[in-house]
């Protein structure tokens, strides 16, 4: 989960990592990878569900599903999984508002669930998502798709589908902007003077 880009102070330096066109091409490539890796449509393949993690994982999951429908002609159900109640940092921050959770009507049992998030960083959001999934059903398997992997993992978690690997320092911030939640599509890297 990325904090909103409109921080209290303007970053000292902002660099664009992906343009709107790059974001579209990256999502398209990830859609192809999902189709291939999950053997989508094969008779013995488990049914796939894309679960977006709010805020920006949710529109990303919807976009991935749209591209998969374009390329494979298969409608993959999508949902939204809010993980706030499962976070381990609630007592280190002001009260976090809860996001919506909307699971596909068929549920998650025996499905291949692909979690979708914008930025993979410490891995703690994904840890929380795995705990939330455990309470929501029993998937056959769980995979992870992220638009950006910026490193600095604090838990043994890795993504199955990565749009772009970005080496960063901890003082930098990576923000994914999407038209659904922001004014445009882009991925930017902010550096702050401390």
């Amino acid at each position: 989960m990325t904090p909103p880009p409109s921080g209290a102070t303007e970053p000292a330096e902002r660099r664009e990592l992906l343009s709107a066109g790059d974001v579209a091409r990256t999502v398209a490539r990830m859609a192809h990878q999902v189709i291939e890796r999950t053997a989508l449509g094969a008779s013995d393949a488990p049914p796939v569900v894309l679960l977006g993690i709010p805020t920006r994982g949710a529109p990303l999951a919807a976009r991935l599903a749209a591209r998969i429908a374009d390329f494979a002609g298969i409608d993959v159900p999508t949902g939204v999984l809010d993980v706030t109640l499962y976070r381990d940092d609630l007592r280190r921050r002001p009260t976090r508002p809860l996001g919506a959770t909307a699971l596909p009507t068929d549920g998650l049992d025996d499905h291949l669930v692909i979690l979708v998030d914008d930025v993979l960083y410490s891995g703690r959001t994904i840890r929380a998502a795995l705990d939330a999934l455990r309470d929501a059903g029993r998937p056959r398997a769980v995979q992870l798709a992220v638009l950006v992997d910026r490193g600095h993992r604090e838990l043994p978690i890795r993504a199955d589908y990565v749009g772009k690997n970005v080496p960063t320092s901890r003082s930098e911030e990576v923000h994914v902007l999407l038209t659904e939640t922001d004014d445009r599509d882009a991925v930017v890297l902010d550096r702050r003077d401390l």
Partner: protein
Amino acid sequence: MKHLLVTEGMDAATATAILDTAAQLKQTLLGREVKKLPTLRGRTVITMFYESSTRTRVSFEIAGKWMSADVVNVSSSGSSVGKGESLRDTAQTLAAAGADCVIIRHPASGAAHRLAGWLAEAGTSVVNAGDGMHEHPTQALLDAATLRERLGDVDGKRVAIVGDVLHSRVARSNVHLLTTLGADVTLVAPPTLLPAQVERWPVTVSHTLDAELPSLDAVMMLRVQAERMHGGAGPAGPGGNFLPSAREYSIAYGMSERRLELLPEHAVVLHPGPMLRGMEIAAAVADSPRAAITQQVSNGVHVRMAVLYHLLAHEEEAVA
């Protein structure tokens, strides 16, 4: 938020945040086999009830348990309160034993407020679960949550609160919360059951229920609190000298089947419980789909989960 003591003075943003959290919690738990969230793991919540209660105590206990808090119930009978221990000493004992949050119901108005003062040093949060004739904020929040579900919004809705307003903490908390959220509130009661200086409240007052019903979006029936009607030389029976007779009260201010027909089609009937069927509400009304009484109870759990979340699941606030 450190404590939840009153709805008087609570701003609309805070109230809306709690109601939004409650709605999300309800959505999250919908249809789940295991209703358990890890959010308050390791936090200790103590309920202290010095007055009898079914739904409020149970609802707080379930709310705490569904959030994985450890919930301990203390009642005045069977604890050292029965030996004459003061409220202050009992509260400090519970705080010293490790309570992160104390939920209190007490017959004295202002008890929760005093408790919050005494526990400030220990950093324990206090929730008012009803203090005398003063406030019952979580009841008002769950009523607002129910109105949002039934009517879409509270803002701009006409709500009548009917009956024993004088003795009702539910009425006080609802008047403050619902008017803050933009509702137009009318109190309907006999003059003997209205508080002094009610003209200073942000409400209109009426003595004729039938005249109000056709323009209402919601009607909230209050229980006639016979246990608080003492003093004075009135006729025997429920109501003391506040009411001529239970039957006369019921005819003038009870929610009968005839009155249900006077309400608009979309309007909803609320009652905070416990109900006196045949007194302030007819059994047929209470059991009709127009009444939201069981919905209020289930919303009570989600609203109290939301309150605990807003009190306990954030960083320590700087002490002012």
